[in-house]
C-alpha cells in the first residue's frame, strides 16, 4: 500500500500553498496530481506519486550515481569491487 510510482510533470496547473496541482504522466497515463509537497519541482521534472500526491522529487544525479555503481559491479562481475568508500559522496550514514 506504500506503492508509489515515478511520473513526469507535464504541466503545472493550480498554484497556492495547498492547491499546487499539475498533470503528471506515468505509464502513458496523464493524471492530476497535487504538487504542494514538491514546491521545487517543475515541468519536466520526475516526481514520486502516492495516493494522488507527489511526495518526493527524483534526484537525477543520485539516480545516475546508483546506476553507475551497479554498472561497475556488473563490469567487474563481482569479486574485484571494494567497499562503498569508492563512492565519494555516499552513502550517507
Amino acid at each position, binding site marked *: *500500500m*506504500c*506503492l*508509489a*510510482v*515515478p511520473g*513526469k510533470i507535464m504541466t503545472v496547473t493550480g498554484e497556492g500553498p*495547498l492547491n499546487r496541482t499539475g498533470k503528471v504522466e*506515468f*505509464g502513458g497515463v496523464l493524471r492530476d496530481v*497535487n504538487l*504542494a*509537497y*514538491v*514546491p521545487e519541482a517543475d515541468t519536466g521534472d*520526475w516526481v*514520486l506519486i*502516492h*495516493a*494522488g*500526491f507527489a*511526495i*518526493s522529487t*527524483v*534526484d*537525477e544525479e*543520485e*539516480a545516475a*550515481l*546508483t*546506476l553507475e555503481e*551497479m*554498472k561497475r*559491479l*556488473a563490469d567487474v*562481475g*563481482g*569479486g574485484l*569491487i571494494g*567497499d*562503498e568508500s569508492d563512492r565519494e559522496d*555516499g*552513502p*550517507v*550514514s
Partner: protein
Amino acid sequence: MKHVEEYRDPEAVLALAKEIKRITTKPWTIMEICGGQTHSIVRFGIDELLPDEITLVHGPGCPVCVTGVGLIDKAIELARNPELIFCSFGDMMRVPGSDVDLLAVKAEGGDVRMVYSPMDALQIAEDNPDKEVLFFAVGFETTAPATAMTVAQAKEKGIHNFSLLVAHVLVPPAMEAILSMPGTQVQGFLAAGHVCAVTGYEEYHPISEKYAIPIVVTGFEPVDILQGMLYTIRQLEAGRNEVENTYSRIVRPEGNLAAMKLIGSVFDVVDRSWRGIGEIAASGWGLREEYHSFDAERKFNLGQQVAKENPICLSGQILQGITKPHECPAFGTLCTPEHPLGATMVSSEGACAAYYKYRRQTSTTA
C-alpha cells in the same frame, strides 16, 4: 518506464547477487519492513538468489495487515450506517473484522466506495452535502501527507459533512517493538524507502545505536532491494551498525519538510494497537485537537465490541517473522485470498498472499 526499468536489469541483479555471495561468510537474518518489498522479493524470487547463510524475515510493513481488528470493526459499523457514504482504499475491502468485511457490508447495500486518494472522498463530501462522508484513513507515514492535506483542505473549505476514521501507524516504533521481543532473530533492517521519503531517516540513528543494528534505507525494485541487502551484509560482516541510504534518488536525510510540517500541524502521536502484535506506545498518528470535528470516532457514537481474531490464524507470528506463511496449516486450504482468515492473506503485500500468489506449488519445499 524510466526510473523503474533500470532497476530491474537482470545483469545488475546477478552482479549484486554474486557480490553478496562473495562477501557473506556467516549466517545473517535480515528483515524487510515494508510489504511492498516483501511483494517484490517473493515476486522476483530475490530470496532464491541469496546464499543459504542469509535468512529473510518479512516484517509487519503493510498498513492493511496491521490495522487493528477493533478499528476494522468500527469501520464496519460506520459503513452500515445508512446516513453515511463510506470511502476506503480498495485494499481494505476484504480485510476480515471480527465477523465480516467491508465488501460484505457493500453487498448488504451499504454505500461503500473505493477511492484512489483521500481527496476523492473529500470531493464526494462536497458533491453530497446532505450526506455524511467518511474516509478510512489507513496507512504508514507514506500516506500521511495525503491524509493531512485532505483534512487541512476540509477545514479551510469549511466542509462539515466529512470525517475520518484514522488508523495511521508509524514504522520506527514497530521496529523497536520487534527488536525488543525476547526471541527476536533480526540482525539488520531494510528500512522502507517510501516511508523515509516522507520522514527522512534521522529518527533511525538512535535505533541503530541502541540496538547495535544496521539499518539501510532501501527501494522497491529488485536492484534496489539487493543493493540494500548488500550494504546491510557489508555492515554485518564488518561489525558496523550504521544508518545508510541506498535509495538516494528518492530519499533525503531530512525527508519531505513541507509534508512533515503539514503532518505536524494536523496530527499528534498516539498509541495504536497493531493486528498480530498488540498495542505499541506512540506508534500512530491521530488528529490534533483543532481537527477533532473531523474525527469519526468522536463524531459518531460507536458501540464497544470485543475484537476477535480468527484463532487458527498465525498472522501475528508471521508479522513478527517467527513463522513463514507456508508453515501455517490453513495456508492455501482454509485460507486463500478469496477467503482470507487473517490480514496477511488479504493485501497483495501481506506475506501470506505473496507466498500464495507466487509460491503455491513450491510451498511445501520452500
